[in-house]
């Protein structure tokens, strides 16, 4: 199977890679590019551990072919922190103890960022609804939801 050359932007940086047409974006992120922060939980779009933002839209990267990344801008968990330090979502997840095993955490952080980019003042119900595509088995979601609401408040205050 001959490989396809893809040019894309990941976490603000130009990236190019070769991939087989059958490879998912998740597989290429992890295996080819070394972005192992994005996790595989099910590989069929049901758990959200592979959440990534592609041209502003939240996607399950296991359901997207890598060749579809051509010309697109992708954000993964590795792109959340900046020169000033952790993103408020990351800080609040730590403060609220919103992770236990942590495997779902990258997916939740990316999904939460996508939410707050779109809706900076969500209600608890809106947070729960948006995040229903991300499965967590350890926390029962309570501390995750609290962290997202707290981070939203922090971001609105300009912190």
């Amino acid at each position, binding site marked *: 199977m001959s490989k396809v050359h893809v040019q894309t932007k990941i976490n603000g940086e130009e990236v190019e890679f070769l991939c*087989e047409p059958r490879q998912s974006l998740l597989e290429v992120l992890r295996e080819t590019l070394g972005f192992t922060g994005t996790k*595989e939980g099910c590989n069929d779009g049901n758990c959200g551990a592979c959440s990534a933002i592609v041209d502003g839209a939240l996607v399950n990267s296991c359901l997207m072919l890598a060749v579809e990344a051509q010309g697109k801008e992708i954000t993964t968990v590795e792109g959340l922190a900046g020169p000033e330090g952790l993103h408020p979502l990351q800080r609040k997840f730590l403060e609220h103890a919103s992770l236990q095993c942590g495997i779902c955490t990258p997916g939740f952080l990316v999904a939460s960022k996508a939410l707050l980019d779109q809706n900076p003042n969500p209600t608890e119900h809106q947070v729960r609804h948006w995040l229903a595509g991300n499965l967590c088995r350890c926390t029962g979601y309570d501390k995750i939801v609290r962290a997202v609401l707290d981070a939203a408040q922090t971001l609105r205050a300009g912190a």
Partner: protein
Amino acid sequence: MTTTNGANYKVIGTRPIRHDGTDKVVGRAVYGGDVRLPGMLYGQVLRSPHAHARIRRIDTSKAAALPGVRAVVTAGDLPAVADKRMDLGEGVVSLKYLRDNILASDKAVYKGQPVAGVAAVDLHTAEEALALIVVEYEVLPPVVEVRQAMKEGAPLLHETLTTKELGEDTKKKSNVASHLRHVLGDLAAGFAGAAVVVEREFNTATVHQGYIEPQNATAMWSLDGQLTIWTSTQGAFTARDQVAAVLDHPVSKIKVVPQEIGGGFGGKIPVYLEPVAALLSRKSGHPVKLIMTRSDVFQSTGPTPGSYVRVKMGVDQSGKLVAAEAYMAFEAGGFPGAEIGAGAMCVFSCYDVPNAQVDVYDVVVNKPKSAPYRAPCAPQAAFAVEAVVDELAEKLGQDPIDFRLKNAAKEGTRRVDGVVFPRIGCAETLQALKDHPNYKIPLGPNQGRGVAIGYWFNIGFKSSVSASVNEDGTVNLVEGSTDIGGSRASIAMQFAEVLGLAAEDINPAVVDTNSIGYTDVTGGSRVTYATGWAAYEAAQDVKAQMILRAAVLWEVPADQVEFSEGSFIHKGSDKKLSFKELAAKLDDTGGPVVGKGNVKPNSGVGGSFAANIVDVEVDPETGKVQVLRFTVAQDAGKAIHPSYVEGQMQGGSVQGIGWALNEEYYYTERGEMANASYLDYRIPTSLDLPMIDTVIVEVPNPGHPFGVRGVGEAPIVPPMAAVANAIYGATGARLNELPMRPDRVVAALQAQAAH
């Protein structure tokens, strides 16, 4: 053992940021699936499509010839060894059964049982190779329900399996692998004296731990015979022991390097992929990585037993329990080993009952071999008992919490297994619920409230810790308990407390099996208790050594030096050094200070009680049950890091809610799981749930330096019963089968309306 005074803790009870937190939120933490090694091959496993079949022939030649394939292995690649019984720290297992569950030899006893492994240059090639392996099966009739399996004439899964009674072989061939019985007092006399008796039957479906990270293993078998395994495991040492047993390879030549682990709940205690990866590595000469697909995780790892439970309980006129009887049959899966002893111990443990009998059965069926799932077998037992207790309370017109308080187990209560309870927090946990404002919130139409309580005994077992003092007064704390839920922080906090240090002054690290003394599994609710205790001992050791060093420095006798409030003090003069100041001078006084702690607590493992109030609203048309409010109170003894104690309470509760309402393995007549994906095996999402309100009760465990009781498992024990009791409150219908799906709720309502 005297528990230290808790009133003035500086670190214990606070909520520091966990030490591994930053790596986990930036995506840098390395989980087993993230491991990369030069020259690494990718593997996949072929699994039986049949629930019950003899394996006649396996032909791997076409797969081995596929370009890109570097090795293919089957059970034939395992060294020939005689069968024997092995104690691997989680009960006695047969070596043949252990090996057959890694790579099947003569039979497949569940759909999904591994049959062959392939290693190739990439995963897609490995998957293509699987399709080229030819296996000749002689399909046999399956049995997938526990009572069917117990009947005379049921298909036998194992020709040589005979029923054991507490280790004694009855020589009776059967699918019943084991039977245990406990008797206390005089059951007949007890029931004879009862004013009200309730007897009910219950069925629970197979459910899975549901950890988001699939099993994984990377193995490198060097030419010198050294085998290194990188894996996400709940126990690096027990993984090493299992691999050594399966491969007949010396323990000294196996190093297990535990990676960060994405959930376990008991399901990552057994090994599945590690020996297969090792064999593939040996054959190919390369490192080999195997990761299970989600479908494999459901069908080929260790869900918890489905069960049939019958409970009969009697009370006298005043509401005092006088007799209790339980019959519990658990589905072990394809090989024996359901944790029936635990179910037998826990079933009536919340109550003071003078006359009781418990019979429990470990029964093989053509389903994946069960593995522990968070308090194994206790939730099934509680689902039954707490419903019967609820009915008794109602028949007597008593408040459900008051009824339980009246009968609550306490210090001095004798359990059905003969053991007497030390100081426990059963009544305090119930009282915490009774006092909670959620218990008084008025309910609306179609709404109901249920309560339930559950118990888990917790284990001690072995832990080792090593602590090196750095020149700047920080400490490197090395331990062997893989961290699934924030435990390295709570271990570091216990160490810090002894020496008056901050949690941030400790650098905890979880290391491989060559780098620390033997440490048992992260499971059984033991880590904060036992590894924390080892850290406490290591801190005491460091303290003692540093007292000697201060004495050397000051040129005074050691018995004139003491440690108090974080400083070393010379009694009788004003010489004083803080821990940090002395740490800077260690080199002058004899070199490094390294402390050790290794424990196998011989006593004082404290059990934990968890109790729930659940409010639900039931849609009478669709049968959908909405959880409105969920309150969990639990006795933690002493909460080292309250956020992570709350996390255990909330996580276990939500697993219980899923078990109650949605989760099940749906089996076809051919013994195949029809819903092996997260789409159709429905675990709770954030949208299904409210906030989970928690109350940490602290009845200190007299058997631990800080009073710790393990908390990981008890929270999953009561929720299904609490939800069932709430559904009854909302509808007047008692559901006795799990899950309490919408169609079952509707059927129960219709049956009720028909009367």
